[in-house]
């Protein structure tokens, strides 16, 4: 039922509490700090960020066998954006590390079941040129 999340998954659109200025991705409908006093709006987050922590997965779950080993990272998005988790691609092993600057890239994530429905979403890759 991932189609319900296409907008969020394809565009890094989450929500934002205007009262405490906190971004949420995945989107939250209630701010955990401000509760009913918060003001939640939709927000497009920056597509640039920095690796906070990472791993290379060698023992994949079902459906991801073909791509293994693959890198996964938690990335802190720019402009006080949220932490986002995703695969890191097009990145040499020696380059992968804490603090690496990355940008989102639209990619195939996996093929779903025997029908082979292709699931797309965002991955990260090293920034080729900082978008100033």
């Amino acid at each position, binding site marked *: 039922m991932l189609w319900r*999340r296409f907008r969020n998954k394809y565009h890094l659109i989450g929500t934002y509490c205007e009262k405490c200025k906190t971004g949420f991705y995945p989107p939250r409908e209630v701010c955990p700090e401000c509760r009913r006093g918060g003001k939640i709006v939709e927000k497009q987050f920056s597509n640039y960020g920095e690796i*906070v922590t990472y791993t290379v*997965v060698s*023992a994949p*779950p079902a459906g991801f066998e073909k791509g293994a080993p693959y890198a996964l990272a938690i990335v802190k998005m720019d402009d006080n954006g949220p*932490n986002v*988790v995703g*695969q890191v691609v097009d990145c040499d092993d020696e380059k992968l590390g804490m603090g690496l600057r990355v940008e989102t890239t639209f990619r195939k994530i996996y093929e779903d079941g025997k029908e082979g429905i292709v699931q797309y979403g965002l991955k990260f890759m090293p920034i080729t040129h900082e978008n100033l």
Partner: protein
Amino acid sequence: MLSTGAKFAKGVDMRVAVIGVGLTKFGEVWTKSLRDIALEAGVKAISDANISAADIDAMFIGNMSAGRFSGQEHLGALVADQVGVSIPSTRVEGACASGSLALREGVSSIMAGLSDVVLVGGAEKMTDISTEYATTGLMGAADEEWEGFHGMTFPGLYALMARKHMHDFGTTHEQMASAAVKNHHNATMNKDVAQYPFEITVDKVLNSAMIASPLTLLDCSPITDGAAAIILCREDLAKKYCDTPVYVTGSGQASDTLALHDRKSLTGLQAAVDASRVAYKMAGIGVKDVDVCEVHDCFTIAEVMACEDLGFCKKGVGGKFIEDGNTQIGGKIPVNTSGGLKACGHPVGATGIKQASEIVLQLRGDAGKRQVNGAEIGMTHNVGGSGATCVVNIFRR
């Protein structure tokens, strides 16, 4: 986040005793099905308590994913059927913390006056499916929509925490590995239950197959079949059944975000901190009073963080604390005398009950070669998912 537990600041009179424990052998038990092992643990606990099934008023069964692992739901009724009773029997689910949640439900039922004697059990049959499907099934304990979607695994989630802990505090892989080495050593003294009762070395951990860097195979708890059960009863009835009852004196449970990346800290589990603080308050004790503890070492880094979250040592020094021998039997605070999840095995729904059973054996003085001398107060730390649920239970002789 809204926090819980402030109301227990003055302590709570729990009035619940443990009068019996029962465990199956943990491992790849190909000759037995889910119902076989659940029944075996239940019957052992009933015999140990020296009661009959007719004395039991209710049952709570911890199980994470029988539907996915065995195609069987409705575990409460399954166990009642196998035991041959028609009393209330309820399945409780909180991922890998399901067992401890079942125990809390049993305690609640007695404290509410609904029951006098309760069987709480946990069971999981995990080896009837491939490792890939078990890995996928276990990811149901994390955020399926936002983590599992990207090919995340449980070793992967704990690897993200391990890497950050190493980066922020200088924790080494050798330090983390020392937790696995110690737990395997303890398992050699728990041969009747433990899945892997043999010694390993730090070198072996570092050089075993990579699972999710920096975590290798021997940093990870295994996939296990197993069941555990304990009998709870009203404190004032305990001596009727048992000469050496153990009392439940504190229980804390807390929740955190389902997804790891949503948390404020990636180097500790806030739910474990919160649950332990509630449990300490209820029991009216401090961390220094704990003589023996079973922690949720699903991965070596998890034991490092548990030592910090529970307050055994300061934040950031958990690795060195374990490497220096403080958590060995005979050390400052013996941790995972059973062999832990790592070496005793981790049948997810059963783990919390196995932890409680080990603490009960320690407090009774029935732990054999792995006995912690003079243990009076023991504790269990049971984590669901990557820390979205945490339960801490405290027991006293």
